[in-house]
């Protein structure tokens, strides 16, 4: 096999594995969200399909597959068809640069392969932010192409919201980038090795606690989740930008929202909580004399961090009511943006001073 063919085969295998994990996670999330929300509100959640309702995601998937696909009269058919895909692809494509496990390299047929990251590009964070912005197009175009006032209002709201909050996401990340001196997620994660106080959330010389808070709030807003779910406010806009969507296209939007949640959680874990690094140096399996299996422990730590973020998403949804639109804008521009900017200044000064001291 030629070198190109081998590279392609390896990459496709990695992509398939990552996509599989993400889709399975999304399936789990749809069930987990309904269950956790139910438990928090003294309900039971889905209980009918399978024991304790654990087969509910499959029932939902089958239902959505076989639903009639309706395109409303007067809709722009091309954009109406494009929008869900435009929403889904950026949500999934971001996982290409997320490091899931230790930064190992393998030699397969003379090719160097990193098994736990599909592509270690040196602008990883920038790439994720760029594609997240393209995802906003899917929402806006979906809202516009539906020929419905609810969809249009939802789309417009989401445009304003995503632009405002993406700024805060980008600015809150810059502190971490200054500390590492790299945009690559692999290098950012590697730089946080050792004890948990080396994670950028706590790391000297400039703990990124404020940036972390800004990032978490902005990422909740960016994924259109409660309490920032104005684009799909059920009580006002029916379902917001996907009011007119049904069947598989609706499933795409749904999948994109949950994939975005997973992506945002992965990025938060990688940037602020050390990614796949355990809170102690090295791994336990390595100490037990199984260094070739230590990736399992690292991956588990990554999963734990990501899932605790996802739990936070559910928890916020169970607790908080929706913000008013002007409150949302005021909070984004007048509170979070100054904090993020101040964090950049403080981090820069701290890094500069600590470099001069050396």
């Amino acid at each position, binding site marked *: 096999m030629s070198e190109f063919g081998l590279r392609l085969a390896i990459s496709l295998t990695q992509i398939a594995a990552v996509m599989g994990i993400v889709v399975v996670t999304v399936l789990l999330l749809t069930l987990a969200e309904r269950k*956790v929300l*139910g*438990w*928090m*509100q*003294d*309900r*039971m959640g889905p*209980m009918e399909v399978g024991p304790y309702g654990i087969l509910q995601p499959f029932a939902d998937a089958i239902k959505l597959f076989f639903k009639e696909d309706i395109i409303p009269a007067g809709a722009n058919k091309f954009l109406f068809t494009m929008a869900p895909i435009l929403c889904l692809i950026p949500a999934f494509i971001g996982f290409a640069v997320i490091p899931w496990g230790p930064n190992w390299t393998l030699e397969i047929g003379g090719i160097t392969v990193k098994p736990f990251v599909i592509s270690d590009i040196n602008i990883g964070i920038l790439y994720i932010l760029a594609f997240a912005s393209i995802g906003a197009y899917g929402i806006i175009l979906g809202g516009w192409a539906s020929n419905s006032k609810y969809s249009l209002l939802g789309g417009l709201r989401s445009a304003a919201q995503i632009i405002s909050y993406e700024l805060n996401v980008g600015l809150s990340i810059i502190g971490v980038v200054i500390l590492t001196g790299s945009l690559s997620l692999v290098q950012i994660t590697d730089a946080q090795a050792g004890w948990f106080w080396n994670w950028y959330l706590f790391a000297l010389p400039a703990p990124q606690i404020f940036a972390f808070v800004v990032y978490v709030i902005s990422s909740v807003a960016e994924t259109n989740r409660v309490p920032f779910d104005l684009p799909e406010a059920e009580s006002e806009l029916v379902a917001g930008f996907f009011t007119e969507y049904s069947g598989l296209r609706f499933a795409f939007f749904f999948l994109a929202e949950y994939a975005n949640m997973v992506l945002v959680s992965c990025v938060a874990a990688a940037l602020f909580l050390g990614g796949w690094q355990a809170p102690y140096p090295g791994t336990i399996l390595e100490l037990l004399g199984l260094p070739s299996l230590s990736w399992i422990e690292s991956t588990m730590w990554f999963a734990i961090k990501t899932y605790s973020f996802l739990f936070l998403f559910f*928890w*916020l949804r*169970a*607790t*908080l009511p929706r913000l008013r639109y002007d409150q949302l804008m005021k909070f984004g521009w007048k509170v979070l943006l100054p904090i993020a900017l101040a964090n950049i200044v403080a981090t820069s000064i701290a890094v500069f001073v600590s470099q001069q001291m050396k």
Partner: protein
Amino acid sequence: MASPTHSTRLRLSEWLKTITFYEILVGMKATLSHLLNYQPVTLQYPHEKRTLPDNYRGMLALLRYDDGTEKCVGCDLCEAACPSRVIRVVSAEVPGEPTKRYSKEYYMDMTRCLFCGMCVDACPVDALGMTREFEWAVYDKRQLHLNKQQLLAIGDRSFPIREKRLELQHPNVAFFNVPFKHVPPKPN
């Protein structure tokens, strides 16, 4: 009026609460405590059902005496008592017995019934009863238009223990509100 130090302290504490998301954390603590002390109030309805109260007023039914004869004497009082005009009685003489009447036809339009129980109260011979059935959702509204046979069938399946026909009651005479001997008198 509060002293300036007091109001300053108040403002400081409010400011601290704002920047630490104190109120949100209180709310999140409440939801988490519900998650940890999970006690659902849900009743899994088709699988488990509530115990109905003793005086539950469910589906209406026509009753029979223990010898299988209908209790209804066709007096039309239930029709008169019904506030929603659910009941329609076609009363007729028993052929060959001019003193005895019965309901030749008896219809209930249960789409209109509001389950007030006035017909049951009005009935002089206790021929009407309210069962504990409530699962009467149907696909066709006309299925709720019940005739006499259906109402008797409901009564048969809901009241397996039937009242004795009065011994002193002449088969040709309808007695109204006669105290039953086998029923203990009400304590006064």
